[in-house]
């Protein structure tokens, strides 16, 4: 399979600390790749290095054959790369519906053109569909900041999918989500993968979630890839078990 996203020998150091130490990974079109690892293993730093939030010390990132290393989040978003963050990142004073529209409106037309566009930028119907899909209809007109953590997390994820990105990097989508919603969230992501056809890279600590959602899993420890492959094989890898549980 031709790689869609290809990360080569990515490194990020903070002084003597090597947060990411020579990570190489590739993601194919429509593929869902899981990234696991203990806290502090460099998963989020890897995401931030790929997504232009921080400047990598070395290495390269290619997306659809284009070198996107060091590109700003704005440039990446225009190339169809979306993300969610480890911590909640919603527009707290905007309504849920406006959050979703805001997440996609900048990809419609030109900036001067948007000044004269309809208030919903022609995205109202699509936003309503996403609100329905993420079971947020009853809170659609409330300010996002007034909702529970779990609901805001759902908004956060829905926002990433609003512009139908070609690649989405999800950083701990289950964190803070009610356990009863986790299965629902997994089903939702599976459905979006089928309907929108994008590729996903998912960081997650919930093993059950990642094992069921991702056909390919990478385990990072101390900034390096310790193991990768099908979820069952990674889970059974003695080195992975040792990294999580100790000797």
């Amino acid at each position: 399979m031709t790689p869609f996203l290809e990360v080569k020998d990515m490194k990020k150091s903070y002084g003597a600390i090597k947060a990411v130490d020579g990570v190489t990974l590739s993601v194919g079109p429509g593929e869902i790749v899981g990234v696991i690892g203990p806290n502090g293993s460099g998963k989020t730093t890897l995401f931030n290095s790929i997504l232009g939030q921080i400047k990598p010390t070395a290495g390269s990132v290619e997306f659809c054959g284009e070198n996107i290393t060091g590109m700003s989040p704005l440039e990446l978003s225009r190339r169809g790369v979306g993300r969610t963050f480890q911590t909640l990142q919603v527009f707290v004073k905007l309504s849920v519906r406006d959050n979703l529209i805001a997440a996609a409106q900048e990809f419609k037309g030109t900036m001067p053109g948007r000044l004269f566009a309809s208030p919903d930028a022609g995205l109202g119907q699509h936003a309503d569909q996403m609100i329905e899909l993420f079971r947020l209809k009853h809170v659609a007109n409330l300010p996002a900041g007034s909702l529970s953590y779990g609901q805001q997390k759902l908004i956060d994820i829905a926002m990433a999918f609003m512009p139908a990105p070609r690649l989405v990097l999800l950083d701990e989508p289950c964190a803070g989500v009610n356990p009863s919603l986790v299965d629902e969230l997994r089903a939702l992501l599976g459905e979006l993968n089928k309907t929108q056809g994008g590729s996903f890279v998912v960081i997650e600590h919930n093993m059950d979630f990642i094992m069921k959602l991702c056909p390919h899993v990478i385990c990072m420890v101390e900034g390096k890839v310790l193991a990768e492959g099908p979820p069952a094989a990674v889970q059974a890898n003695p080195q992975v078990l040792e990294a999580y549980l100790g000797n």
Partner: protein
Amino acid sequence: MNNAQKLGLAVLLVLYALLPQFLKSYGIYLMTLLCVYLMAAFGLNLIVGYAGQMSIGQAAFYGIGAYTAAILMTKLGMSFWLVLPIAAIICFAVGLALGFPALRVQHHYLAFATLGFNVLVFLVMRNEEKLTGGTFGIANIPRPTLFGYSLDGALPFFYFAYASVIILAAVLWWLLRSPWGRAFAALRDNPIRAESTGVNITAYTLLAFAIGAACAGIGGVYLSALVNFIEPGQFHLSVSLMMLLAVIVGGSGRFFGPVLGSVVVILLPEWLRFLQDWYLAIFGFAVIVLMVFLPGGLLSLADRLKFGGSAR
């Protein structure tokens, strides 16, 4: 805005239009000043309330607009109608330039950068005597005519300023209801997420400052025509602080917040004058009480009643 709110707004607009008919010249002057002040406050609300940037330099743009009008009208004999867009464009350009520090610093650092700008402009107004008249200011600034009809009288100028602020508010309302308004709010609420969702935070930050500055510049042109005389003291840092107070007291990020806030800042001290020596102290105390109990501004009272708890 629902139908009841639209009706309420229409009634208030009509009442405000009728009120000067029953007032003496000083009352009409205050009501006109409120309209003029509101132009600058609307602009500041765009910068602070909608785009989430800090500015303590709005009076500088108010002054640039006023001095541009005064110089061009008294020294070059230019028409008010020509001066108005020139002042707005100059303030837009200077506002764009002042937006650049906002790309590097935020919050109180940005506040001090804009404060420094206000002080700089004040010093230019005071010290560049040949151009600005220094502390003596510029007098005999003419009022405009509209289709050959003189606006020299207090009432005609009031209605002119009133219609103008309504037009300006309508333009801003349309702008803030467009996707641009949502992008400004996204920038205010979460710039990191905004950028990752394609919002060009550089462009929107600069535009917020530029449009807000242009509004203040327009207000300044009207001020110069209203008072016929300007001097640097009218654009001192304290005026910027009062404008910021107007935005915050009314409800920052709420469209009609600056209206209520400007009423508090412009009219409340006048209403309290019967307290004689105590009126400013009482005004200050009232503002403190308001900020403690309604930190989200006067317009947040409705939300507090609806949702309960803090009205931030």
